[in-house]
């Protein structure tokens, strides 16, 4: 199992970035750097949480977001694996995409004369409606 030593992940608990974001970033970096390849198995949530001495919910959140982005895929009892399209999908930054879209929309609202407080109230209202529909 000597080769396993090369595939490492490091978390800095004093880093301002949230722990789950650090995990996501590092797994994506490992995919982009070719350290882990599509089809490679990842440790279980419990194993990674124990090794990093962190809450398993944090690791589960990171895995859930990586699965949403199709960087990893869960195959039932067999475990979690790197997605076949992980290399392409690791370059997609959904947070940056959302920020860009919101930026465009807010500029359009302001041009139309909508105030910041009206934008905030409307945004919160829409979010609440969406959440209620989802529930």
């Amino acid at each position, binding site marked *: *199992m*000597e080769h*396993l*030593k090369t*595939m*490492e*992940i*490091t*978390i*800095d*608990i*004093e880093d301002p970035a949230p722990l789950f974001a650090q995990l996501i970033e590092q*797994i994506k970096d*490992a995919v982009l750097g070719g*350290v*882990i390849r599509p089809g490679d*198995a*990842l*440790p*279980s949530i*419990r*194993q*990674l949480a*124990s*090794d*990093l*001495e*962190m809450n398993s919910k944090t690791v589960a959140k990171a895995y859930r977001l990586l699965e949403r982005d199709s960087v990893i895929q869960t195959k039932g009892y067999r*475990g979690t694996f790197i997605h076949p399209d992980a290399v392409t999908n690791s370059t997609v930054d959904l947070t940056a995409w959302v920020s860009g879209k919101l930026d465009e929309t807010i500029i359009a609202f302001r041009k139309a004369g909508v105030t910041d407080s009206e934008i905030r109230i409307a945004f919160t209202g829409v979010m609440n409606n969406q959440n209620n529909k989802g529930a």
Partner: protein
Amino acid sequence: MPDTFSQLTVLTVFYAVFLSQIYLLSVYFPGKIIRRVRYMLANFPPEDYPKLYPSYHEGFVGEAQRKLGFYNGINIAIAIFGLMILTAMLVKGYQPSSQGGDEIFVLFYTMLQASPLIYAELKAFKQYRLMRAAYAPKVRSAALNPRRLFDFISPIYVVTAVALYIVWLVFYLNARGFDDPQVWEVYMTLIGITGMNIFYMGWIVRFMFGKKLDPYKAYPDQLKQIGAVTKTLVFSSIGISIFLITSQAVDQYNLEVFDPPLMSLYMQFCMVFGLGVALNMEDIEGIDFEVYREDASQPTS
């Protein structure tokens, strides 16, 4: 006693096996443990490797050497006591009971022999707790690979353990069954042995996926430790199944005179394939002690 075996054969087997037990449990393994601790104290002293000794205080090394001497003395005393029992038996012309039951004395003596070892293990767990309490790294690392059971033990041993458990279950239920007059004993045995195997499985899972006992341990050493624990417990499961099957066969074929040496052999098996495997796999000269230095960077988990 069946005519098939002469008194001399039965007694020779008994004394040979019991002598071997005295040597293994009270001389060989304690000696190995003492040499291991002395090697650590001599080559990795608390001044240079403080993380290895969380309960370090002034006069620690001298106190540790005294405790090792006491541990050695206790084991020698237990070995002498065992030899005295054997001599008394020889002088009094002991004959193993043809009804069985003498193995209980072997069991008691084994418990006496194991008590210093159990004490040492409890002390080790206390040290691990102190290590964990002092462990607060800001940067933590982990290997991004899954750990799987068969990375640590051949499937053959696991299949053998499961198969032997099933063989024992079928053999035992066939011999005793649920219409046995002492059915509670049957239930207790079934619950005890099944529970023990489940406990072993849980312990393996805990070592594979749970937090490390020693938080500073380097990743390759952690893998060695998981391998040692896994092998120890799977071999123990195999050993107890073989012992139970043989014990049942001994009862069935009226060979109870061999119960005491059988019990002794089983205890020795547990020590050789338990502690022996663990000590050999965690070869002290191969352990990375640099992680215990004051300024050592945090090891990969």
